[in-house]
């Protein structure tokens, strides 16, 4: 219990630090949103007026206080270029990215687990190196490279999946999956390598354990021993690693969502950054960092549940 309270307190502290860093960094970005709004029609007087009305002239500490106060009370302010309240905007984009995160993770695991198990069974033989090398190929190319290749293959040549856009799962579940498929695949290919490696090493460890030997001695078929006894025990650690990859994933979605015009958090953050929409950058970066941190926390806590030894230390 003390461990959990401790963790929760440190989470609050980290959230605070995240907010400070986010705020500080966004305030030293060059350029400003007044200019983006007015574009080539900018002129000094109009800019000054617009800046004043947007509250960009207040002292930083006031702006920070206003932002944090808003975050806590649910008033996240308005995006300056989208001209919409930020909270619902982000809520909607989180759903979009959630679809991609879940799908890419699923795709990665669907490949990584069989590949990793296969490599573990044939440890140090050609199958092992084939499996780990082919998994590495996925992570050896930038994900936008995969993205473009997938568009050319699956959208252009085969016409199986749409090349761009987002559909909300509540409106059309199948459409949502079809639109999210190519970006998810591009991201999944990058995730695969690490998960395959994790599955392999976990499985190698488990296959050497006593209960596996017992199961084999009982005369169970090797296939059953591996896939049911072995894998069942490997799933926990593998999912843990998958959870830790969420941070990596939230970095990658910036490029991939932009490429596919998939309007999720990555796209939103990049748009905000491009347009110097400071309030939106602050809130979306904060949300991404918070999601990553909370996912890591969740993984940690799950680990405590799975592996009681942690509690002792």
């Amino acid at each position: 219990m003390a461990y959990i309270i401790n963790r929760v307190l440190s989470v609050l502290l980290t959230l605070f630090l995240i907010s400070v860093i986010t705020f500080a960094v966004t305030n030293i970005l060059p350029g400003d949103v007044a200019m983006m709004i007015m574009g080539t029609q900018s002129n000094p007087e109009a800019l000054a007026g617009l800046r004043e009305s947007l509250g960009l002239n207040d002292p930083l500490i006031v702006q920070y206080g206003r932002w944090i106060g808003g975050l806590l009370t649910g008033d996240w302010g308005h995006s300056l270029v989208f001209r919409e309240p930020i909270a619902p905007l982000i809520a909607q984009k989180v759903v979009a990215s959630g679809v991609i995160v879940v799908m890419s993770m699923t795709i990665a695991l669907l490949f990584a687990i069989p590949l990793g198990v296969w490599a573990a069974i044939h440890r140090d033989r050609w199958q092992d190196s084939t499996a780990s090398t082919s998994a590495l190929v996925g992570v050896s190319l930038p994900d936008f490279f995969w993205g473009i290749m997938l568009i050319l293959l699956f959208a252009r040549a085969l016409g199986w999946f749409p090349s761009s856009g987002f559909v909300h799962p509540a409106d059309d579940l199948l459409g949502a999956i079809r639109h999210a498929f190519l970006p998810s695949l591009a991201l999944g290919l990058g995730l695969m390598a690490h998960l395959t490696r994790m599955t392999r090493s976990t499985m190698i460890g488990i296959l050497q354990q006593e209960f596996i030997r017992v199961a084999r001695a009982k005369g169970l078929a090797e296939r059953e021993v591996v896939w049911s006894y072995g894998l069942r025990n490997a799933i926990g650690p593998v999912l843990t690693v998958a959870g830790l990859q969420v941070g990596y994933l939230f970095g990658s979605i910036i490029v991939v969502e932009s490429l596919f015009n998939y309007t999720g958090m990555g796209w939103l953050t990049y748009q905000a950054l491009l347009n110097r929409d400071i309030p939106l950058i602050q809130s979306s970066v904060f949300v991404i960092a918070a999601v990553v941190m909370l996912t890591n926390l969740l993984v940690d806590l799950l680990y405590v549940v799975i592996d009681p030894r942690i509690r002792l230390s």
Partner: protein
Amino acid sequence: MRGFMTGKGLLGGGIVITMLLVAILAPLFIPDTFATRMDMRARLSGPSLDHIFGTDQLGRDLFYRVVLGAQTSVMIAGAAVLMSVVIGLPLGIISGYYGGVIDNVLMRLVDTLLSFPALLLALTISAVLGPNLTNTIIAIGIAFTPFLARIIRGEALRVAQMPYVEAARAAGTTDLKMIIRHVLPNIMPAIIVQGTISLAFAILAEAGLSFLGLGTQPPDASWGLMIQASRDYLDVAPWTALVPGAAVAITVLGLNMFGDVLRDVLDPRTQT
């Protein structure tokens, strides 16, 4: 050293050494204008005797671009990782070796920074500093620092708790001496392994930043920039993407394989 003599070790090591040689030697023998020389009559032409890897959208020879681009890509990745090690090393060692309040404060900060996806961090830093080669290195370097600091801290903590280190400390050896004599040599393998793997990620990060226009600036050749420039011509001139793509893939693959083998050999404890 037996571990290097596996197929994976030889292949990975071979790739890494070849790429390093290309990056270092190519600029000595090939004038850098070869990478930017244009031929408007031979735009997007396929591989031929004149241009063995074909040409890009401005009629530039892709062989020279990819070979001379090795220097840019390898240099950015190398300098960025070096930077993150140089910053992460003292942070990690101080944190792990002394523990206590310093450790708490530093690691809280590192954990916070780790919550920001590295690419997002690099992107933001690059946007703040403005795009050019040095700033690309700084952006990637800073973005990778928290991760390395975390690893180094774990290693330093492990070494500091070793019985003989504790004994030596009790006997009054100064901290600086302890760190140089015992801690550093013991954590070196882990740094080398993580550094190698980080190099692979740094090459990808450079490509990602260049894709978004915030990395290497044209007309300099870097692999990331070449892929970025090729994306409009992929279906009519696939070689424009495949050539730099293959260079990135082979190098990153080599680094990852080499990193795996290094881990087996130098740092069997963390073997995965």
